[in-house]
């Protein structure tokens, strides 16, 4: 038995997902997505748990997990700042935004704070060039960033 388990709510969501596929293992991606939401990241224990749920060996979960770059296999902060490094954002000064965030959060890019409050990432184009420079904070987009608006967002989220 694995050491982790879905909450009742996630479990019923999982059952709903699995019912949509002809085979259990076909539900791999949505299940991983659900697991990431529930556990924050896909740890080896979660791999084993997802394997059990889908009735496949844990190694098959790991193959899928490592194939995709957007799943977190390491712990991620509660607030995940993904600053766009696309060409539009770069022209509009994303470097300054990144440096400001690094200073404010006391983190290098691609790092997570020890208290698991923040993660700072630089990402490729998020497709919102009209609001460049922009970033994605958890599930939300924030555009037309300046150091001041970044501070406002930080204050609001703290």
């Amino acid at each position, binding site marked *: 038995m694995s050491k982790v388990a879905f909450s009742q709510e996630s479990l019923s969501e999982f059952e709903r997902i699995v019912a949509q596929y002809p085979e259990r293992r076909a539900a791999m991606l949505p299940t991983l997505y659900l697991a990431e939401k529930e556990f924050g990241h896909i740890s*080896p224990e979660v791999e084993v748990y997802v394997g059990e749920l889908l009735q496949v*060996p*844990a*190694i*098959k979960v*790991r*193959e899928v997990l*490592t*194939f*995709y770059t957007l799943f977190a296999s390491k712990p991620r902060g509660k607030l995940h700042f993904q600053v766009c490094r696309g060409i539009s954002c770069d022209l509009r000064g994303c470097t300054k935004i990144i440096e400001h965030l690094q200073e404010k959060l006391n983190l290098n890019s691609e790092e997570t704070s020890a208290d698991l409050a923040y993660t700072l990432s630089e990402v490729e184009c998020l497709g919102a060039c009209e609001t460049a420079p922009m970033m994605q904070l958890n599930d939300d987009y924030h555009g037309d960033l300046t150091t001041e608006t970044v501070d406002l967002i930080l204050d609001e989220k703290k």
Partner: protein
Amino acid sequence: MVKVTIDGIEIEIPKGTTVIQAAEQAGIEIPRYCYHPGLSIVGVCRICLVEIERMPKLQVACYTPATEGMVVHTNTEQVLEARQAVMEFLLVNHPLDCPVCDQAGECWLQNFYMQHALHDSRMFENKVKKSKALQIGPNVMLDSERCILCSRCVRFCDEISKSNELGIFNRGDRAELQPYPGTELDNDYSGNTIDICPVGALTDRDFRFRTRVWYLSETESICPGCSTGCNINVHHNDQRTYKAGGSRVSRLKPRYNPDVNEWWMCDAGRYGFTHVDADSRILAPTRSIGEEQEMSWGEAASEIMTKLREVISVHGKESVGVILSPQMTNEDLFVARRFFRDGLGLKHIDFEVAPLTTGAKDDFLIKADKNPNTAGARLLGVGARQGSGMTVAEMLEAARKRKLRALYICHHDLANGFAVDVVEEALTAQDLVVFQGPNTNSTSALAHYVLPAAAFVEKTGSFTNYAERVQMIHTAVTPLGESKADWQIFRSLAKEAAISVPYFEAEDVFQALTAEVEAFSGLPYAGLAGQGIALRDGQALPESETVVA
């Protein structure tokens, strides 16, 4: 049945046959890496692309079913160009370390490069570095840089050994074959992943750097490791044994037999041949009474027969016990029967020694009976259960009480089946103990005469497996020292006793055997080579409840 035309050759094949299989039947070999007839089809390597008329693009021959009227071309310019392009991709990050790679000489990257690619490199970028010489299990070494990600080994672990140890992690040029973190490629069949690896990614820790494969010769044989009798090729190094610490047998490889082992063999069998070149080999007939002394075969035969006759004349025929072995071939056992039972008229003959610890078994290839010829010995009637003589256990008891005065023991280490003191008490109470076998053991240490028998790679003969399939072993290397096949040893003893054993070759013995033994009657010698012949149409027998050491 459907009719297809491949490179102008029209053939008829059952529906559902893939193009690659159909081409094989037409005598055309389409290159392949990921396709293996024993595994599921994934179509990932793309080297088997062929042109099929009325299809817009090239198709993978391994996954495309041949359909009625299909016209396939495997050698057009378009196909050759595609193959070359696939080879170019496969070699983008290949380290080209052939000079230090064990696979060189049997590598499909080398072969197909020479046959289909011959391109010049267009790459200026640095190659991606990955882990090399990574020990991923007790028998297997991984070189990730050489891996072409065909996933044969992954599928083997999923589908055949069903142990799921291997996976391919990450993607693109960072994709890498690895065992699951914290685990090893450690199953009873792990060596097969080395066989099916088409490149030098998985190499054999046992064979690594021992010899170049082009110095090896191949001889068809049967694995003597258990009663399954997996078909094997013995790879032996005849020219450069000095490069391999004197060992002549370099490795065993499974040989395809759809009725026995398909493409596979277990690790215990694969690596269980070291006794052949071990220091424990008996090299000459030896007298061990008082001072140990080597003798010629003539001296040994005459001395042993003189002593045996003495025992028989004083204490009678019932005072001699003969312990044969299911490690011996049908031919060995038949001559033993002719000499001991028919010639000397001895009654107490047996071959079964139940081991103290039961052998491992599974429901695939591994049988608990670790002998290749138990069924043959039973059919030849050389066991106590087939005759009326004493069993081995009864013989030892009788020997201890000096009701038996002489024991002739073949191959067995009796300590595997009996407590050491039981064996010692029995053997030391004898007037004559003869041991015959390829290697010394705790039983030979107690014998008065020790005779060197050829190992299974040094003789020709046949084994009868658990399902009563008769299969042949062939002489791969010459017998070490003075050793000779068991039946030839019995023949020299019989000559001393003026008992006729008129055979010169193993084939002569086999002919006499088929003429005399009902179960084997009518078996054609010529038909045994290759896949062997089932005595009862391949019906598998339930494994006997008595397990033999």
